[in-house]
């Protein structure tokens, strides 16, 4: 079963990957995004993620539906975390199960690219001496 969720709880990537396991698949590809300590040489203290939650869930639903149309995959699981995240904590997990692993790799890579482009979630980087809302690529979405 495919699913998409937004939560403020810590993410357990193993548990999320397990939930997409179907009986006829033998491989899951999982993308695990996390808070990096250094971005362009500057040290991050922590991150804050904020979402336009009802719209984010609609966009996630569309993403999952498009992934099922475009790739030969069985199940997709996407969970994005919100709120304050410390260095090294997981912000997003995308797990894809497919009968042939090629499709799982392709779909997983496509899903993270599209999620970063379309799902209304924003990240604030907090440094020792300031903070900034990260703005996505301006080509993103009309």
């Amino acid at each position, binding site marked *: 079963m495919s699913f998409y969720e937004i939560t403020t709880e810590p993410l357990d990537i193993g548990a999320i990957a397990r939930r997409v396991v179907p009986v006829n698949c033998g491989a899951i590809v999982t993308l695990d995004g996390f808070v990096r300590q250094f971005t362009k040489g500057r040290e991050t203290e922590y991150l804050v993620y904020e979402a*336009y939650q009802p719209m984010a869930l609609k966009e996630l639903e569309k993403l999952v539906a498009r992934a099922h149309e475009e790739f030969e995959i069985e199940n997709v699981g996407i969970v994005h975390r919100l709120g304050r995240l410390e260095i090294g904590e997981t912000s997003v997990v995308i797990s894809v199960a497919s009968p042939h692993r090629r499709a799982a790799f392709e779909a997983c890579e496509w899903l993270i690219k599209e999620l970063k482009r379309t799902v209304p979630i924003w990240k604030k980087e907090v440094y020792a001496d300031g903070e900034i*809302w990260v*703005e996505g690529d301006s080509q*993103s979405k009309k």
Partner: protein
Amino acid sequence: MKVSVLFFGATADVIGEREINLEFSDHAKASDAFSEIVNKFPRLANHKLLFAVNQEYASGDEIVKDGDELAVFTAVSGG
């Protein structure tokens, strides 16, 4: 007619609010409504903005109706 306008992240910081209510003339086009919002808060123009009507990305051609939920935000940065 009255609509609510939501702001997130950088745009909420610019406005100092996460939600405001605005009056528009009936049958306003979404693109006109969004122009009016940016004119009202000119510092928004320092950002690349995205717009939504009722939780869907807006093309601008939508006709805004009473009670609609508009949103103004910067290019997304989740993941």
